[in-house]
């Protein structure tokens, strides 16, 4: 018995564009009980191997399209809701990507459902292998 999984364990990989490794990506599920528009996803905070990732280096892909966290603020189309129980892909810019072997993510999903007097911060920590 273990806690319920947040990340897709098979999803961690380096991302190449035109033969250059520009970063890495993974998939995880929102830690909430219903779907929501990306406009209420107020932040994804990541510390990879103990190092803070800059907010502008994080993108999220839902239903085939990719948004920066800043762009998410205006995304309200139903086709880009982060569905309950479904993975979204997060891409992190990092020249050369991650080395082969074990790495850790200390992550946080921060969402702001309108009815809550405060934001929900869900910790999402994992050790994974590239």
């Amino acid at each position, binding site marked *: *018995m*273990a*806690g*319920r999984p947040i990340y897709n364990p098979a999803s961690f990989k380096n991302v190449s564009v035109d033969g250059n490794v520009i970063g890495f990506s993974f998939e995880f*599920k929102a830690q909430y*009980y*219903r*779907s*929501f*528009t990306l*406009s*209420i996803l*107020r932040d994804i905070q990541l510390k990879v191997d103990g190092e803070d990732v800059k907010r502008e280096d994080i993108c999220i892909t839902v239903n085939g399209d990719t948004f920066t966290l800043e762009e998410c*603020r*205006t995304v*309200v189309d*139903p*086709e880009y*809701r982060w*569905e*309950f*129980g479904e993975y979204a892909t997060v891409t992190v810019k990092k020249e050369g990507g991650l080395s082969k072997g074990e790495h850790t993510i200390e992550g946080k999903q921060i969402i*702001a*459902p*309108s*009815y*809550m*007097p*405060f934001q929900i911060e869900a910790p999402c920590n994992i050790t994974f292998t590239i």
Partner: protein
Amino acid sequence: MSDIKRSVSLYSYQDEYYLGKLDLEGCLRETAATGATGVELLAEQMIKQFPLPIETEEFRNQWFDWMKKYNLTPSCYDAFLENHIYDNRTLTLKEQVKMMERDLRLASLLGFPVIRTLVSTPMDVIEGSLEYAEKVGVKIGLEVHAPFSLNSGWADGYMEMINRTGTKFFGFIPDMGIFCKNIPDVVRDKAIRHGAKEECIKIVDDAYANRVAKGFTKIKYDLNLGKANMEYRMANGMAEMMDAVKAAGGGPADLDYAGSSFTYSWSEPQDIIDNIDYIFHTHAKFYNVHEDLVETAVAIPEVVEAFKKAGYTGFLSSEYEGGEHLRMDLDVDSIEQVRRHQAALAKAIGE
């Protein structure tokens, strides 16, 4: 013989849905298997690309085919008024009324007689939607969830609106979390798993028992929910309890347990009887029902007795909320929990 009906909120099956073990139809099948005749839906939870499918005849036909196949009746549609959908402003009153009308319309398209709205919904948004609610024949029920309660300064604000407008399309949906005789055992067990001290747990449990014994100080009506909630907590002895936990050497798990104790409250079941004319749906919240059909926190027999005495004919809709205290470390079996809870309700109703 009582006319109280049983329903299941599909919220209850969220852990199985999250893991892909149940889809929407699977949840309906499990609901029917418990003997419940009603189904409560969070459209934003289990209908993908909300609200687009509900606008299509194809989906609606599928929905009503399922209702027939599983012998279920739509009981309540849980709406979320996303009035802070943008981070730089609150939607205007007109925009919020439109959103409420959208939900009333979607609920009516799927055959729901009631929508659940949340305590954060401004009064003028409710009032501005009443005419439309009447037009589509869907009532607006305000969820009365801890720390809120019936027979309180908070509820009086809404009673004033009901009396002033004479509306038959607005009322209350009590959440049975307002009838907790003690803190759910799954919450205590989680605290212990995470390193809480026996001494601190006792301080918190004693403080809760004390609140129940002397009666909770009720929350006031205030649109600033954070402020109202903090005043409520302080009036109910939160500062003293927190100090005692800290003095006993409480760490994060102890303080977390102490803070979460304010998620639960105890109201007198008489509140149901006093307000029965304004109650047309009920969230039968629960946290952990044991094999002997005893729920650990909610006083099911006493509360159902009050509903019977009041002549309630609406649904008691199972809403399982124990999973969130397990899922970090343990497996969740919502299907079994809901089965037991429905059996406990049936027994209390006297079916």
